């Protein structure tokens, strides 16, 4: 029992939330985009580009919040290209997403060389420090878990109910979902499908950009080539597992985050399990969860289908 009492502590939950955050952002981002009818597999690329933009903003201004603004602007611009190609040009949405991902690999390393003269790694920049939330931090169990986290962790958690409310409780959300479920019916009742789809993709870009900024200027304090390491795609898996619902996505991200924090603690405690198995655990859980959800998880009917105005 000695080993396990070292592994299973309250900091495991703290770590789980930290690991869940950079997945939760792209998961919520995917929900907005796909609910409006636009497949978005380019989130990994958006996150990389905005992670880099965040570092640039923080480097030149000395203020990490300016970095967050840079990241949001970069996310917005990148998704604007995505939206234009998918909505106006009616391009194959999977290919556009792949293009954005390739751009996410190339653009930052190109600019890294131009701006900082270095390969693959940026200088260290000012980062967002953890906030201590006065009341919660003093509570016994909740204190260590939620009392002192990065502001971007709090924003991510707040975005879950906010996204749910926007999507399912407002007229805007209803119209956005209609554009993804049946755009032709939506248009006949006067909903602008183009506007809804643009909104979905742009909101998605901003949310994904916060995930990138979290990695580069909150969790760490520099940009490193390919630092997202597949988190954009894991976010999409969480979205599917959560059946395109923010609460479900949150649950999926927490499972993944928990598995990730568990493997870190278990490895450090020299638990007699090969590191390869422990490292694979979060991904295995994600696959199992996806298979479990497969039969029932049905996405928006018109996702990935271009809409042509009559």
């Amino acid at each position, binding site marked *: 029992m000695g080993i396990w009492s*070292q592994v299973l*502590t309250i*900091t495991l939950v703290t*770590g789980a939330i*930290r*690991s869940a955050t*950079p997945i939760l952002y792209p998961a919520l981002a995917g929900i907005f985009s796909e609910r409006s009818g636009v497949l978005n597999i380019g989130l990994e690329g958006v996150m990389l580009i905005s992670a880099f933009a965040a570092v640039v903003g923080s480097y030149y201004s000395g203020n990490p919040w300016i970095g967050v603004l840079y990241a949001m602007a970069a996310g917005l611009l990148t998704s604007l*290209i995505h939206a234009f*190609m998918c909505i106006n*040009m*009616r*391009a*194959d949405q999977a*290919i*556009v997403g*792949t*293009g954005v991902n*390739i*751009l996410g*690999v*190339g*653009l930052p*390393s*190109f600019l*890294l*060389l131009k701006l900082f*003269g*270095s*390969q*693959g*790694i940026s200088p*260290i920049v000012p980062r967002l420090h953890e906030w201590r939330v006065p009341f919660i931090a003093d509570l016994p169990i909740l204190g260590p878990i939620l009392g002192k986290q990065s502001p971007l962790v709090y924003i991510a958690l707040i975005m879950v109910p906010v996204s749910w409310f926007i999507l399912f409780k407002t007229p805007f959300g209803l119209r956005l979902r209609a554009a993804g479920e049946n755009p032709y019916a939506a248009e006949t009742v006067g909903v602008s499908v183009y506007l809804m789809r643009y909104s979905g993709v742009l909101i998605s870009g901003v949310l994904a950009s916060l995930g990138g900024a979290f*990695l580069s200027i909150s*969790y*760490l*304090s*520099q940009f*490193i*080539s*390919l*630092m997202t*390491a597949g988190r954009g795609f894991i976010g999409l898996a969480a979205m599917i597992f959560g059946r395109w619902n923010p609460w479900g996505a949150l649950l999926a991200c927490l499972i993944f985050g928990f598995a*990730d*924090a568990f493997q*870190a*603690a278990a*490895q*450090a*405690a*020299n638990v007699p399990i090969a*590191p*390869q198995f422990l*490292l694979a655990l979060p991904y295995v859980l994600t696959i199992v969860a996806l298979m479990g959800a497969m039969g029932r998880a049905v996405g928006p009917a018109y996702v990935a289908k271009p809409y042509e105005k009559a």
Partner: protein
Amino acid sequence: MSRTNTLLIVLVVLAMVMAGCSPAATPTKAVPTAAPAKTLSFAMVTDQSGLGDQAFNDATWSGFEALKKDFGVTIKVVESSEQAQYVPNLSTLAEQKEDMIVGVGFLMKDAMNEVAPQYPNIHFALVDSYVNQPNVACIQFKENEGAFLMGAIAAYMSKTRKVGFVGGMETEVVKRFEAGYRAGVMTVDPKVKVLVSYAGAFNDPAKGKELALAQYHQGADVIFQVAGLTGTGVIDAAKETNKMVIGVDRDQNYLAPHNVISSMVKGLGKGVYNVGKLVVEGKFKGGSYRYGLAEGGVDIAPSTSKNVPPDILAKVKKIKQMIIDGKIKPPATLDELKTFTPPTLP
């Protein structure tokens, strides 16, 4: 639909051009020197990181510059922007009859195996990997010797009597580090516990940070990271929790001056210089060249004196001398570690 496709193609091509541009894909940069009757010409092929990576390639190039300075050889570099370019880059230089062609990094192993047999009269060198070819000098390092010293420093510096090790992937080289490190800790104090974690990647700093935080949380107060870019996350964790960390490959003290107490530096330039010198002297031979503490292939970073007290540093230097004299043989694999019996220190 055709307009769509055109735009798409433009986007994708633009992206690829940018991806391709990044490691400044210039064909050759020749650095001419005042030519005597017959000037030797040495060439180097980089991996994707290219010159300016502040690591492997730059360190190897420094060896080339020293060769140029000391022997007046002509030096040139060809940068590879992707793995598929290794074979053509090596072949082109071989066609040009360069006097020595150096490939950098273990990723170039397969390319070297393909090209070297086709040009049996050309001298090749491969940095940080091994191929069994008569005309390839394989420059490798005794990382276990340097890591042994890092283990000693960690054990001496730890107040909690728990130290950590974070590896990138479980490759042969990283395990060589692990074996040496654990033996070093054991030699100083067999009661000090070593926590070992692997990230499964060399470029996931967020995972590196999470692993390091877990180790620090479980009581480790020094971590040796051998994890490439993943390791920058380990150093970040040390800075955040105000714990100690040990860097790798080059002196990483500048990343966190109060936390990076030492680094195990690798003398890549020195290794290349030595092999280049053999070519100049006409004594080149293929095979394995392993550089350890004695040859300056691995060493303690100079910045160590900033954070490690002089009495501890003196003890570590004594251990270094014992390794050079052959009195201590640091294990190079985890199997050798099992049978390793720590020597008594004076």
